[in-house]
């Protein structure tokens, strides 16, 4: 890790940070990644988990049908009241193009 890498990651995450913070984060990340990186060489592979575990402890997905909506508009005011800028029932944003 180095300062430039951290600044680039912060850019991807849309967070403004100072050069000094990037520098100190790079050292912190080195020690954190060194610690969590121990799993890299522990030999974990998704394909090794095998069907046995799958059958014994299945992971299920839960879906539901669309429907039963709440009464239209009952939360509109409460939610829009939290918006930093609004125009009537719209959230106001800056011009993009």
């Amino acid at each position, binding site marked *: 890790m180095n300062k430039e890498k951290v600044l680039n*990651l912060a850019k991807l995450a*849309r*967070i403004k940070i100072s050069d000094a913070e990037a520098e100190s984060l790079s050292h912190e990340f080195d020690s954190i990644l060194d*610690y*969590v990186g121990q799993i890299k060489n522990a030999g974990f592979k998704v394909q090794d*988990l095998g069907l046995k*575990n799958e059958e014994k402890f299945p992971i299920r997905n839960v879906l*539901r049908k669309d429907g*039963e909506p709440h009464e239209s508009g009952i939360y509109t005011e409460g939610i829009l009241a*939290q918006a930093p800028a609004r125009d009537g029932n719209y959230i106001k944003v800056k011009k993009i193009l």
Partner: protein
Amino acid sequence: MTPEEIKIKDKDIHAFLEVFDDAKSYGNGILSGKKISIKDNMLFSSHKASAGSKMLENFTAPYDATVVKKIKEAGVIIVGRTNMDEFAMGSSTENSAYGVTKNPHDVGRVAGGTSGGAAASVASGMCDMALGSDTGGSIRQPAAFCGVVGLKPTYGRVSRNGLISYVSSFDQIGTVTKTVSDAELLYNVIKGQDPLDSTTISDDTYKPSRKFLKVIGIPKKFVESEGISDEVRNNFAEAVEKFKSLGYKIKEVELPNLKYALPVYYIIAPAEASSNLARFDGVKYGLHKEGIDGIDDYFETRGAGFGREVRRRIILGTYVLSSGYYDEYYGKAVAARRLITAELRSLFEEVDMMLTPTTPSPAWKVGEKSKSPLEMYLEDIFTVHANISGCPAISLPSGLAGKLPLGIELTADLGREDNLFAAGKDFMGE
């Protein structure tokens, strides 16, 4: 205590971010008259919920979280919202944007975290019970530090609708109480399937794999290899003897991959956080800071609204999910997570519960561990397995190191809170 009395008592502790002056009883129910605090990441309609962050300093909840709705129906009095590490990232509430919560047993020390305010509010007698949330030990560790009972239920037992997300596959709402009986009472009120949270489960989802026979497994090698303090080691040995004297059978067990639970946690947690917290954009709600154009608004808002630890975890999460590192970190962590879960669940075919200390040491001094984030992360060594696997776990007060409380932790199979309550009541003499 009246709201005024709570405010006076809380001056030295800072368990509360807000004590509600308009606190009222919600009528007759199973929890009538019980005073309860809620963590600052749970929505209570028309009240502020800031998740301990400047990002949501002025956010007012437009609706009730499902748990809040349920405790109201049970007739509680909601006395206030409690302090927490910002967005539930931390182990001591020192990451709160609104100041640290002090330990009621020694105000020079931390109350633990992230539900430090919840634990301190109950331990100091400012309320009867508290709702907290637990992503990697955030209920159990502060409960241990403050000498109270902390329960993290099975993943999916309690609806997360209206809980501000941190790690959606780990987060679970649970209870902080003085007794195991109260934990059971409050748990029975808040649990249940909820159409507004598709991850919630029914009482029948996980059937018991064995009859409860009072058998406790101890991963002795794991406990002893993790640098625990002498006070914790002695206290843990006493707790084991106590269980034996209560007719429990103790079995030494080995879980070879349990040691990877913490590294797995600190890969998956920042990864999910970086994705979950993308919603804070200064557009829909929360803080807005002006930049030179639309995209610059994001940079300004997120740079100013998130505190240091939150920025650290989002950026770290961005790294472990980025192309080239995804397989190495996130992919491996997800595989390890499933292996650790399978290992734990297989263990629960042989024993009813696993016993460990809740923390490697008692509460530390305010500021003592703030220099190195990794040092703070290592404090979660005995709690993260429950979130990784989804298993329920409870921390029970087990004695003192000087004046500082210590805790032991029981973990059970998915859906087996009943085992935790039975053994917990035995241990506490309830």
